């Protein structure tokens, strides 16, 4: 199939503050960069899982790092004063730059004062942020980027696409082509070794002749003035130690109170970043060094400047939400664990400098809110949340950015109709956001009016209008509104055979199940009641997930409070809460801490379960054998399954119980190994993101195909509604909920 030519090039994707530019960048990335980005990020991602699993006190280290960061940012002005005194006491120079321009001018002046002609530079995102090279080059100073990825970007004149692997979008083949074109050389450059040797020899000459070295700093200790430099190639060691003049530039947020605090960070950063125990080189320096600089026959005295950049950070510190982004140690775990990022990389899912889930807050803080528009690519799937070494709630940051951008967009370009809709729904957001965010209302009316609503929905004119007005892609099959909601259907199912000692529970009919796919709810009711659970249904109440994901945070909060009251009533009555849709369950177990008082949140968190998770717990507690009740051999479609768990289900630990339960029943289960299916709730329904969503889904579809190529057909099973839709869209096959599988066994007994 031929695709349209990309309308953007990697060199023109920096500014994505307007929607069309963002969409063009996505198209470009899908076409040119996706394969290399996917390969590299997925290697990082699996490496991180392995490496962090080897750290016995991983969670304790994360807690410690988080606490240290919280304290450091809270005390930042005081720490900066301490640090300034420490650096000066050591014989170095300290400069706090209010803006990027101030930093650029200061560093350029230091260099011209020393008659510097050639600067070797280590990788520094802060220097990218402030365009340091432009200032130096304007003063006639040659700047050699010595990190091999930055070397590639400097030659290609492109922006970074990843926080730690800035040229992650380049395949080996494309690097070879680039070098051949730029250097006009006949040398063989067809392997990683040959390319590396070529670059090494070219850069070794630069190192030996450099007058100054400019590095970043991963961490700075205020009490001693020590800096930490983490790298694999050795170029940062050369940059910081060979030339007589060393300038380190970094953001003010990198300052920690004491050198003693460094331990947890050093132990976390490399496993989280590249999946190594430590990077090849982790250097701890308290500059200036005392040994005479090797690379200068003239100068015997070393000079050191520490340049700390504010450039919006101290304002971020005052922001009730964005200040959390200042804890970031730039390990990139959130990028690598993100299915969307794995598919397009930072040229689409990133701003001019910072990329991925955390990048939106940084671009908003250092460059302005609309530069965070790419954070729309955060689906809130939450896979990054447990990966962050300082436990930043990245989806929460992005929901808040969305709320702010919604408001700006509505003010700037909303028409009369849109503004009226916003007033009607009390949400300052464009219409598509309201449509997806208030699915509870559309679902309710659609179900009341079914089958008429379904007939209307499937008219080509309706689909065209929906695409136009609210952005639902017309290639997506819409879930039909059921003739009867779950609440309605279940009321008529008799509470058969309940025996109180089995357990008492209340099923919460989330809006996705209730109005979208009640059959899995009906199956849940049947399975639990047949097993003897005393099960009732709670009132229908939107849990707030849909609103939160669209940035309608105030609406989500109101819905959470109302739902919290509903659920609490049943919990106080001694019932556990069963939630079918994992995104709704994750709302209760994770996000409600933002909206409810700590004790109410804790009660809801501790008493909410996914259905199979709940059953598994009962079987464990009573030491019952699953196969006695749900023998896989009795499943009408056979005992071979392919099971895909939902992204948020994995994050809250509700995926493993289903896998365990199905295996205990005797099923031969192959599980998917993807972070997210790509649909991510409403994300894949949106016209703007349909192609990206389907591209993300390819990994999952291919895993199903590979599993079936090996040993024949498997029944497809998924817990999330949108995962079911996505699998169905990619493979054109029926997809079952685990409870439907169990219900089929019960019926077959």
């Amino acid at each position: 199939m031929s695709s349209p030519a990309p309308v953007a090039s990697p060199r023109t994707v920096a500014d994505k503050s307007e929607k069309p530019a963002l969409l063009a960048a996505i198209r470009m990335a899908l076409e040119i960069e996706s394969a290399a980005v996917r390969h590299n990020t997925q290697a990082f991602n699996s490496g991180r899982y392995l490496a962090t699993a080897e750290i016995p006190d991983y969670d304790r280290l994360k807690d410690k790092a988080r606490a240290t960061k919280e304290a450091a940012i809270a005390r930042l002005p005081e720490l900066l004063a301490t640090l300034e005194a420490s650096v000066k006491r050591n014989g170095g120079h300290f400069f706090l730059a209010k803006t990027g321009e101030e930093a650029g001018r200061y560093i350029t002046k230091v260099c011209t004062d020393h008659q510097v002609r050639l600067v070797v530079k280590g990788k520094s995102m802060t220097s990218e942020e402030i365009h340091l090279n432009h200032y130096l080059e304007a003063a006639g100073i040659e700047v050699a980027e010595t990190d091999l990825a930055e070397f590639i970007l400097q030659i290609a004149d492109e922006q970074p696409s990843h926080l730690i692997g800035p040229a992650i979008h380049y395949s080996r083949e494309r690097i070879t082509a680039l070098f051949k074109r730029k250097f006009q050389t006949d040398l063989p450059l067809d392997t990683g070794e040959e390319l590396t040797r070529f670059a090494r020899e070219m850069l070794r000459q630069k190192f030996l002749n450099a007058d100054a070295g400019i590095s970043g700093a991963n961490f700075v200790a205020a009490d001693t003035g020590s800096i930490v430099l983490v790298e694999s190639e050795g170029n940062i060691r050369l940059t910081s130690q060979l030339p007589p003049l060393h300038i380190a530039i970094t953001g003010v947020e990198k300052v920690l109170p004491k050198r003693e605090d460094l331990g947890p960070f050093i132990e976390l950063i490399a496993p989280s970043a590249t999946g190594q125990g430590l990077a090849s080189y982790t250097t701890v320096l308290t500059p200036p060094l005392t040994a005479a600089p090797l690379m200068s026959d003239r100068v015997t005295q070393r000079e050191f400047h520490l340049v700390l950049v504010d450039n919006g950070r101290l304002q971020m510190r005052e922001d009730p939400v964005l200040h959390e982004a200042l804890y970031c140690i730039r390990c990139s775990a959130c990028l690598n664990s993100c299915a969307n990022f794995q598919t397009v990389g930072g040229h689409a899912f990133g701003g001019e400098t910072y990329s991925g889930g955390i990048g939106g807050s940084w671009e908003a803080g250092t460059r302005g809110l609309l530069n965070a528009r790419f954070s729309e690519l955060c689906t809130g799937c939450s896979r990054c949340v447990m990966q962050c070494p300082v436990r930043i709630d990245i989806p929460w940051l992005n929901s808040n950015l969305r709320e702010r951008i919604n408001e700006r967009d509505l003010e700037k370009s909303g028409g009369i109709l849109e503004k009226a809709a916003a007033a009607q729904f009390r949400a300052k957001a464009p219409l598509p956001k309201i449509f997806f965010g208030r699915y509870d209302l559309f679902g309710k009316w659609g179900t009341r009016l079914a089958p008429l609503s379904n007939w209307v929905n499937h008219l080509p004119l309706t689909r065209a209008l929906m695409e136009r007005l609210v952005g639902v892609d017309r290639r997506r099959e819409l879930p039909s509104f059921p003739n009867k909601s779950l609440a309605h259907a279940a009321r008529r199912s008799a509470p058969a055979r309940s025996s109180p000692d089995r357990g008492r529970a209340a099923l919460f009919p989330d809006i996705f199940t209730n109005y979208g796919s009640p059959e899995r709810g009906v199956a849940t009711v049947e399975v639990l009641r047949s097993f003897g659970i005393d099960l009732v249904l709670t009132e229908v109440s939107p849990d707030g997930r849909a609103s939160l994901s669209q940035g309608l945070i105030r609406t989500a909060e109101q819905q959470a409070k109302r739902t919290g009251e509903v659920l609490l009533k049943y919990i106080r009555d001694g019932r556990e809460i069963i939630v079918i849709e994992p995104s709704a369950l994750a709302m209760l177990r994770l996000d409600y801490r933002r909206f409810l008082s700590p004790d109410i949140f804790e009660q809801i968190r501790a008493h909410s379960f996914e259905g199979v998770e709940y059953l598994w717990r009962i079987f464990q507690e009573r030491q019952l054998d699953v196969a006695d009740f749900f023998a896989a051999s009795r499943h009408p479609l056979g005992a071979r399954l392919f099971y895909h768990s939902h992204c948020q289900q994995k994050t809250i630990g509700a995926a493993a119980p289903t896998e365990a339960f199905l295996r205990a029943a005797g099923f031969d289960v192959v599980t998917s190994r993807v972070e997210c299916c790509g649909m991510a709730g409403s994300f894949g329904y949106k016209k703007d993101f349909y192609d990206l969503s389907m591209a993300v889904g390819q990994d999952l579809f291919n895993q199903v195909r590979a599993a079936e190529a090996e040993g024949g057909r498997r029944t497809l099973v998924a817990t999330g509604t949108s995962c079911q839709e996505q699998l169905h869209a990619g493979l054109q096959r029926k997809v079952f909920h685990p409870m439907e599988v169990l219900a089929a066994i019960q019926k077959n007994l």
Partner: protein
Amino acid sequence: MLLPEPNWCTVVTNLAMSSISSAPRHDLVQQFETAATSAAASVERVIYAAGALAAAVKKIATGRIAVGQTLDLPSDLFSELRKLPGVVTGRSKQELATCDVGITEAFAGVARTGSVCVAVDHDYSGSISLLARMHIAVLSAEKITERPGDLFNPQFLNGKAMRRNFVFITGPSATADMGPLVRGVHGPHKLHIIILE
């Protein structure tokens, strides 16, 4: 940038938390050796004596050799090393940048990650350990500690570590920026660790 290999992570056998050397010495050395090997360094155990050390180096080091001064180890431990053929004595840019082998003391080793800690501001040990294609690090078995964080414990080495400019070296320099994993970038292609027992 460096992409991980499948067996990149080190094997952790000791679950004790941040004390300096709670595990028995023998286990720490074993753990260190396993971790360093999986980080692509080579490891060799040698008797704690100047002659034995020089003999071990002689087997693998050819060409121009730079030998750094000892730091915590007694200086006469390196005395036989300095008599090896090819040892350069100057400290100029020309001499150090053209060496084939650089030998330095590692004042500490980290069992969990297989890292060696080299003081970079001591007789050009930073350059000696970085500019040659092969780096040989000499580590006393007694100086192997459990985890990287120990180096930031104010009591470690009686507080000396907290004042040092040093680098944790974990395997040879490496990159994946050019596509596949390549060892030997701006730093050594080969890291050989000699543990003195």
